């Protein structure tokens, strides 16, 4: 383990001439060269020549005193379900291999406007359907902390790229924990924003009513920096909230004595013991420093997981209907329409995707819709109401995952075991509220994280508490050596 500068410090140092963007890109490329063949964090990488050229141009502009953006010279990796017009975008699916979108996602436009350098597109479970980044048609991503283990998913490539130094910042996406779970498994930080704070324009949809593009980094303050840039109203996304970008970067560290923390029985029960003990150690520490800790039970949360999956499957079945071999590269060979699309989809989708599509069709079909899809939306309302009510009083603390990073292959044979990994994270997606995952320690070599859940648009509160925890644990800017 080793510690590196935070990204926001790097930007300051670029501007002061203490660091040079060109040297920095060489450093990052070195890490990629060293790790990538083992880890497989990236599906596609920008050519080094172009990256170096960009860094040189940025370096020149800084020296000339030209106006530069807030992410100047930072190396950003982007999950491969976010559209880029200059790099292929596959969502890790064979059905989109190769596909170069004719437009950039809103978040990508915002990154480029701030002079970020996009280094490549990171690996994920196909269409973000998974919790381990093993279900990619480009092969699994491995956890840099232990190459026999998974980095979590579905934004596993983003998390891995951060933890081995292959990027300064990363964009992931979080439908049911897809940014927070990998953050927890790689000692990085991931924040699932309030639903509607970040534009989804250009995010290849899986469960549209649940997901948000999510900033990921190696420190809480870096996550805030990235969030402020990608957040805020976008007229191209009708679910975008009519708010300006939040100013979370300037949030100050919370004082433990001002903290009101709620712990929900249903969101801490059932975790493996190393995770449990580390969680309680932090809570006790906060309590000893004056934080007010309260304990609640919300029995409806025992239904959160099936509720989440029912809604996600239904939306997925619909969103993935478009891949039928017309506009996308994987095509059937039959000359009859019905056979052609059936064949295109058979060839292009992996098994988990097919499973979820068919379950989604089931949940929406006549005779089952009320018992599955509509029922789930009703349970969702109750969960949302309860969580919004509770978070108006306190910040919810919970674990991120009930288990330590599993070994490759350990979880994917049994879908229900796979789904179980998301039991603590889906709540924030169902309720639409923001949630932060950050490291609190290691069990041997394996990182363990904690999750904070706030009320709608209370990202700043989460950043504040995150800064406090970083001070307690010292886990900030950590990478694998």
């Amino acid at each position, binding site marked *: 383990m080793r510690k590196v500068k935070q990204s926001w410090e790097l930007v300051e140092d670029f501007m002061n001439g203490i660091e040079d963007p060109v040297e920095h890109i060489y450093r990052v490329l070195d890490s990629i060269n060293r790790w990538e063949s083992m880890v497989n964090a990236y599906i596609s990488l920008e050519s080094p020549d172009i990256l170096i050229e960009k860094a040189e141009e940025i370096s020149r502009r800084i020296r000339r005193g030209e106006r530069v953006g807030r992410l100047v010279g930072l190396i950003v990796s982007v999950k491969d379900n*976010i*559209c880029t017009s200059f790099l292929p*975008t596959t*969502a890790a699916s064979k059905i*989109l291999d190769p596909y170069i*979108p*004719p*437009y950039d*996602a809103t978040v990508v436009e915002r990154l480029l406007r701030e002079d970020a350098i996009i280094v490549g597109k990171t690996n994920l479970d196909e269409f973000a359907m998974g919790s381990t980044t093993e279900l990619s048609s480009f092969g699994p991503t491995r956890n840099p902390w232990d190459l026999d283990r998974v980095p979590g998913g579905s934004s596993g490539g983003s998390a891995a790229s951060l933890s081995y130094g292959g990027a300064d910042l990363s964009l992931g996406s979080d439908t049911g924990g897809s940014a927070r779970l990998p953050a927890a498994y790689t000692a990085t930080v991931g924040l699932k924003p309030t639903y509607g704070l970040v534009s*989804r*324009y*250009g*995010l*290849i*949809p899986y469960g*549209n*009513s649940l997901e948000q593009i999510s900033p990921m980094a190696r420190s809480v303050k870096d996550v805030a920096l990235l969030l402020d840039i990608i957040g805020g109203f976008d*007229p*191209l*996304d*009708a*679910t975008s909230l009519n708010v300006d970008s939040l100013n979370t970067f300037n949030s100050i560290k919370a004082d433990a004595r001002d903290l009101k923390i709620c712990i929900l029985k249903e969101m801490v029960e059932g975790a493996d013991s190393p995770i449990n003990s580390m969680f309680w150690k932090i809570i006790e520490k906060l309590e000893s420093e004056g934080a007010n800790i309260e304990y609640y039970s919300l029995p409806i949360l025992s239904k959160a997981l099936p509720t989440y999956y029912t809604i996600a499957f*239904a*939306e997925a*079945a*619909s969103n993935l*209907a*478009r891949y*039928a071999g*017309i*506009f996308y590269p994987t095509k059937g060979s039959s*000359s009859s*329409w*019905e056979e052609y*699309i059936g064949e295109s989809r058979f060839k292009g989708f992996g098994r988990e995707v097919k499973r979820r599509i068919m379950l989604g*069709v089931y949940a*929406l*079909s*006549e005779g089952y*819709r009320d018992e599955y*899809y509509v029922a789930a939306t009703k349970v969702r309302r109750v969960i949302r109401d309860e969580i919004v009510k509770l978070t108006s009083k306190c910040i919810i603390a919970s674990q991120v995952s009930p288990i330590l990073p599993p070994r490759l292959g350990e979880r994917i044979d049994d879908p229900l075991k796979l789904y179980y990994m998301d039991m603590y994270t889906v709540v924030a997606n169902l309720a639409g509220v923001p949630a932060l995952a950050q490291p609190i320690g290691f069990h041997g070599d394996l990182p363990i994280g904690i999750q904070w859940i706030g009320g709608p648009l209370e990202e700043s509160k989460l950043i504040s508490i995150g800064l406090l925890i970083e001070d307690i644990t010292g886990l900030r800017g950590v990478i694998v050596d």
Partner: protein
Amino acid sequence: MKVMIGLEIHVQMSEAGSKLFCDCKANYRGMKPNTNVCPVCLGLPGALPVVNKRSIELALLAAVAFKCNIPRYIVFTRKHYFYPDLPKNYQISMYEKAGGIPICRGGYVKYLDVNSWEWRECRIRRINIEEDPGRTVYEEGGIVRSPYALVDYNRSGVPLLEVITEPDINSPREARTLVEYILLTLEYLGITNPRLEGVFRVDANISIEGGERVEVKNIGSTMDIEKALNYEIMRQAMIINSGSKVERETRHWDAEKGVTRPLRHKEYEEEYLYFPDPDLPPILISEDMVTKAKEIVLGFDITILYENILKLGVPRDIAWSIVTIKPSLDVYIKTVKLGADPLVAAKILGIDYKGELKERNMDLYEYNNWPPPETVYELVRLVVDKIYTYDTVKGLLIPKIAENPKVDVRSILPEKAENIEDIIDSVIREEEKAVKDYLSGKKQALNYLIGMVIRRVGKRAVDPRVIREALENKLSKLKSSM
């Protein structure tokens, strides 16, 4: 034999400017295939729909015009089916039974049946706003056999109104009249241009007492509504007369052959997996929006406009003729405002000028083909002040104006009879031989004399009938004095 017909009328909101959920054009005519497309209307991954404000405003006008219950908010749903012209393989529509809320529920149309001059009523069950799919062209063999389908997505995402009526219609003629009335209403409200190619399609549900309901899809013109329904009634009547029962089914109207054909059956009930589109939160229909819509609708209410003309003493057929052509109504209202006699003005615009345009194959709906109200006012004055007969105005002036609607009436006024008298007299004096021939019974000599008069009249307009009449008069006097 009682016939019950209900219609589903799909009308493009061609005047909405842009497509329903993106910035591509709502009217794609004249564009090369697939040049009016973007990530949204091609359904590319990650692209998101945002509702076009204009299309909601226009749809609301229709809902107000048809006296609908207007909901406080509307909700879009997804309807899934796989088809080459549907890029996302779902269509965004408003399905009520799965959380959708349409812009109109429970309205009615009061429409004029011009065959009997009676007002009829047809209830509107619902009006949905939805997106049009692309357009498919089949190669040789058509939809049934074509090896390939060629698809143009320029139409994909164009805003559609789906007007669904109750089965209140009792004859094919009525069905046609109703559709014409609805289209006219939508045209007056600035929602659509009914004359654009493919701008509307009608599906009809039809049942004869005692039989099941048959749906006939894909009717593309008002004339075909009547044809398709007549065919279908005949077909069903023959089944009944032969002692069989009409089965519930869906048929396709083949306009070329003039017949309806069965569509292939699905194994199980159609399953569309409806649910509310998560990308499109409900749209509030504010009281302010409704109030504004009501004001606009009041200004363009065809019933009121028509009855206002009747009140001026204009016969109903002429009044209706004016109302059905929006530019002619505009000119008519302004002409009457200038103080013109409403009846003469109505006759000119509703019958003779319109007839002249038709004869010349000119577009009746093109504003530039109609004269300014001042011109019509002048024509009416000429007739009312007895300067010219109505026939002269009709025979001489109207064709010239149709040729050039912006022409100054004064510059085309025909010579009046008194001035022509002198010319006729001098022609009779000078053309002795022709006069003699005519008087001795060679009738064709008269045409020669008319020609001579016209030549002397020169460039000024003159009615040959007037000359003929005057010449015949003078020559007969000459004969009797001989």
